[in-house]
């Protein structure tokens, strides 16, 4: 009878699609007296679900990442409540980084105590997948409602069959609240069941405070268990309040007991159940930190009591309503490709989960709050790859992310000064303070210790931040935000570029010793991406100064006085930008990626296909620098970001030249190539890259989502659809589209926000429809077709003909 679950036992697979058995989650709704869920809380639409059927131990870390729940303030990995040999349960709070006083240590997103532990004993035997027989097991991530479900049906060695249905959520309506509900059903036996709910910190380096606290003696009122930690290396504390509430359909009263030591608190409840009895264990966790609250311990305890008085059901309903609202402004629908549809919702789910619109002092790490990889550090990934999603679907979240760069400006200035430059030099990696957090060294796969140069040389992040600020302003028209937060970034980054390079005897301004987005080539001169974007940054800095002087002179005077900007300095940016060395050949229409790129040894990447690893792993770190293999979109990315400044022939020529030389050794690369291929009309390449981008986390054999999801790739996927296949481009008076749907798509639709207007776009092979709401009209454009001024409450339709598009027609919705 004893059987350890293995891949062959339960046909595991991660996919969308409905569970093979009836939806057990409905059990929650069938018991209205005990259920905490609104009646419409479950969805069985496979396009809204990620399903992990069975259990594969080796994939557990990946599964935990993919099934993580988060709300921008907190994140919680989708670990098994009872644990397994590979379980790595983790809860994170955005902005809470620990730093130990050891050589080479950099801040790392702190793993908080595991609060998800629920252990169940049936007649003093633990319920575990390692003993007995797993009859059914699945984890289901419901994107629509932001809920992680688990269904487990188990037969122990004595034949007792138990069914468990659990759900977990990080409230989007109340960001300090995590909720975990367990429904236990003894199918065919009577027994004494013991539930143990615990919260435990296993890191002995973390100082624990033991708050003054006494358990409640009243069995009808749940205890609120406290725990408070000091954050190593920071003058901060994190406080937790955890309550557990056990309800049974038989109304049986359980016996409760508390266990507590310095690093663990546990509440146990024993209850006698009969066959068919439903037991519901509701667990609420409130988390507050001293970053924003003077007494986080008191606040967390009070918060849990508030939630208990309002009722868990009300909290769950508010959470579901918030997700509904976010999806209304973010959901992309692709009819005709269910796998892509699921990947897109997976992407949007994790992006929405990652951002906190209420906190401008944190940003999104490369692996969001779904894992500890990359130490929670923030890269250009946020501004270049994720931010557009927020700009066009939830501008307030975008503002919060940009505010983080504003609040860390002083650290960026400090970094610039430390290198002998002026202005703001943003860190390649940053955490809570905005200081540079890139590690100094790394041990390579062959054991060699390598110096990490990115913190010093990968300086394009400075212009990436500026570009994001400008993009946000152009898309939202939010003048207040721009002059209050954005303008200072634009000016200080321009100032940096005017000091980073030098005007040389050849009459050009050169920026030497850099790493471009193509990180296979370190310490190069005049990287085309960097120089193009730096020149753009200088011009926009100049434009910003002019705008401030003209429209917000008081703000300009304040900034000019505080930052000591002179008219001469600002006007010099024009000449620096004009003299910027751009390695462009008008004959070939190509940008040389950096000085000397053409002299690199040519590698025919096709001869390495198929391959199972990145090219730098196959060739080696030093060897690949001598080749012309490009890691990721570099020049190609510049042609997208500076679309209106680079002609169509140049864009196409560079894509055709660099695409075959790109090894896509970064998860940031496929989506941008899908986007560009769609825009230049290469449907075959666009489809291939889109598929590759969609599978970065969801492909079953990638193996590198164990430390968290690839947030930039998720943002890139959204951009590939919206900017690439839909051909969306913001313009000065409105927006334009150039649909490039794949043949098997029946419809592509999505919402967008632009300067206060809300648009719902629906593209079909033969027509495009745009519904507009918002007080001011905007200009709608379509490739090689006439424009129309679109006004509030109308829907506009353009039909495709053999030769192009008919003019827009206005119809009432």
């Amino acid at each position, binding site marked *: 009878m004893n059987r*350890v679950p293995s891949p062959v036992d339960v046909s595991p697979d991660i996919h969308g699609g409905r569970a093979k058995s009836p939806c057990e989650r409905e059990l929650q709704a069938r018991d209205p007296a005990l259920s905490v869920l609104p009646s419409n809380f479950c969805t069985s639409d496979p396009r809204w679900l990620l399903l992990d059927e069975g259990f594969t131990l080796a994939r557990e870390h990946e599964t935990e990442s993919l099934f993580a729940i988060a709300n921008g303030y907190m994140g919680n990995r989708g670990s098994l409540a009872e644990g397994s040999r590979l379980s790595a349960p983790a809860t994170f709070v955005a902005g809470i980084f620990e730093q130990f006083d050891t050589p080479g240590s950099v801040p790392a997103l702190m793993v908080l105590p595991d609060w998800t532990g629920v252990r169940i004993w049936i007649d003093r035997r633990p319920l575990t997948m390692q003993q007995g027989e797993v009859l059914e097991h699945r984890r289901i991530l419901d994107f629509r409602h932001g809920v992680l479900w688990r269904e487990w049906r188990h037969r122990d060695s004595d034949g007792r069959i138990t069914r468990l249905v659990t759900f977990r959520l990080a409230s989007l309506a109340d960001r300090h609240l995590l909720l975990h509900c367990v429904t236990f059903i003894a199918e065919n036996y009577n027994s004494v069941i013991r539930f143990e709910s615990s919260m435990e910190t296993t890191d002995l380096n973390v100082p624990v405070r033991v708050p003054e606290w006494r358990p409640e003696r009243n069995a009808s009122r749940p205890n609120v268990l406290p725990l408070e930690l000091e954050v190593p290396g920071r003058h901060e504390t994190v406080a937790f309040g955890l309550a557990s509430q056990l309800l049974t359909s038989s109304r049986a009263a359980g016996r409760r*007991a508390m266990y507590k030591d310095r690093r663990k608190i546990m509440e146990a409840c024993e209850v006698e159940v009969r066959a068919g009895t439903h037991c519901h264990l509701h667990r609420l966790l409130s988390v507050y930190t001293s970053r924003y609250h003077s007494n986080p311990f008191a606040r967390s305890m009070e918060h849990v009591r508030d939630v208990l008085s309002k009722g868990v059901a009300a909290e769950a309903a508010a959470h579901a309503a918030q997700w509904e609202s976010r999806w209304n402004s973010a959901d992309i629908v692709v009819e005709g490709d269910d796998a892509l549809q699921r990947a897109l919702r997976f992407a949007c789910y994790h992006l929405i989960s990652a951002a906190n619109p209420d906190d401008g002092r944190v940003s999104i790490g490369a692996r969001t709050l779904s894992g500890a990889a990359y130490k929670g550090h923030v890269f250009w990934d946020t501004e270049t790859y994720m931010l557009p999603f927020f700009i066009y679907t939830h501008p307030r979240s975008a503002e919060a992310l940009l505010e983080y760069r504003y609040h860390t400006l002083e650290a960026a200035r400090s970094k610039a000064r430390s290198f002998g430059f002026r202005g703001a030099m943003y860190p390649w990696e940053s955490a809570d303070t905005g200081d540079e957090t890139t590690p100094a060294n790394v041990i390579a796969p062959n054991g060699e210790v390598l110096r990490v140069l990115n913190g010093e040389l990968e300086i394009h992040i400075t212009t990436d931040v500026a570009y994001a600020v400008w993009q946000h302003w152009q898309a939202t028209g939010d003048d207040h935000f721009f002059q209050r937060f954005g303008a200072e970034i634009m000016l200080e980054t321009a100032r940096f570029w005017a000091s980073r390079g030098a005007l040389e005897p050849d009459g050009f301004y050169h920026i030497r010793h850099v790493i471009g987005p193509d990180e296979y080539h370190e310490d190069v001169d005049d990287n085309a991406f960097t120089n193009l974007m730096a020149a753009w940054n200088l011009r926009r800095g100049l434009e910003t100064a002019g705008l401030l002087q003209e429209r917000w002179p008081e703000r300009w005077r304040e900034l000019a006085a505080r930052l000591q900007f002179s008219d001469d300095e600002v006007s010099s940016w024009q000449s620096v930008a004009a003299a910027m060395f751009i390695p462009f050949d008008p004959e070939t229409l190509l940008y040389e990626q950096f000085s000397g790129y053409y002299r690199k040894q040519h590698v025919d990447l096709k001869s390495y296909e198929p391959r*199972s690893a990145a090219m730098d792993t196959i060739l080696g770190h030093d060897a690949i620098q001598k080749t012309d293999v490009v890691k990721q979109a570099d020049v190609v990315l510049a042609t997208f970001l500076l679309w209106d400044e680079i002609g169509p022939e140049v864009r196409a020529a560079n894509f055709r030249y660099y695409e075959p030389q790109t090894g896509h050794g970064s998860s940031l690369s496929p989506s941008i190539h899908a986007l560009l291929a769609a825009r230049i009309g290469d449907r075959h390449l666009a489809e291939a890259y889109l598929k590759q981008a969609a599978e970065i986390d969801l492909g079953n054999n990638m193996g590198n989502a164990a430390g968290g999801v690839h947030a930039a790739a998720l943002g890139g996927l959204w951009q590939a659809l919206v900017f690439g296949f839909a051909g969306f481009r913001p313009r000065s008076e409105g927006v334009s589209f150039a649909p490039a749907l794949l043949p098997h798509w029946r419809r592509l639709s999505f919402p967008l926000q632009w300067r206060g207007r809300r648009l719902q776009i629906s593209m079909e092979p033969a027509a495009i429809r745009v519904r507009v709401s918002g007080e001011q009209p905007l200009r709608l454009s379509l490739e090689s077709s006439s424009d129309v001024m679109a006004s509030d409450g109308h829907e506009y339709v353009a039909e495709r003909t053999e030769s192009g598009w008919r003019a827009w027609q206005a119809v009432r919705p």
Partner: protein
Amino acid sequence: MQAALPDWNHAIRGAKPQCATAIRNIVLPLTGQETLPAIPVARKLCELYRATLHVIYVGEGLSDLREQPARFGLTAEDVRGAVFDQASGEPPAAVTRLARELPEMLIVMSTAAGQQNENNRFGSITESVFDAHPPRAVLVPPERGNVTWTLQRILLAHDGTPISDPATGPAADLAQRARAELTALHVAARGEERPAARGSIAAPLYVDQPHHEWPAWAEEFMKRVLAGGAPPSSVHFRLAVTGGQAGSEVAAAARERNADLVVMAWHGHWDHKDCATRAVVRGAGCPVMLVYSAG
């Protein structure tokens, strides 16, 4: 209300699958002078496992071997405590029969046992013995000679798929017994698709930031490997990654690192072109332990 915490994990630990690493019997087929280099390896492994040596003699004069081992190039020490068995019938069948009868058995034999084949094949007896898919066997190259064998460095070749997992436990167990250094080697392959088996962890296709990705990947790789084989924590376990063709890279790494033993899983077939297993056995320059893994 306060009490000691119940030890939940004790119950979990008790339920962990135990890896089959114990060896009680070592089978050594002797067919002639070319097989003598396997003897020091078999003797050392007997010592490490505290196992019984079973010498299968293929040919006439078993009593001479027992009583006058020097006539066969053996010392009395070589065969001390050994159980002798004379093969009757076809030698491979005899080896296979005995191997089936003995519990917790390991075959140690030369790659050159039997008639020498052309091309890339091993000796005819070696080939036939492996046709029966012994669960665990050590192949010894004849060129190492009949010299003392020590075990200080073990190279575990792991392709990142669950098929390789069965090799982990034996490698770790042996490393602990010999107090040897254990290095897990993963080859990022060129010209091969990513493994499709669920739970595989090949070298990453995306290395966004090497200084974060490699330590994280190495940790994940090792955790999965450890979970698959449960080696004792005292073993010094390193991970190395190279790029290229799997067989030749493992063989080259074994030579460069002066490995005393390569341990790898074996799918049970090696007649296909560019077979990595043959390339390792041919090129490693040291004995190779093959752990049969049906996959």
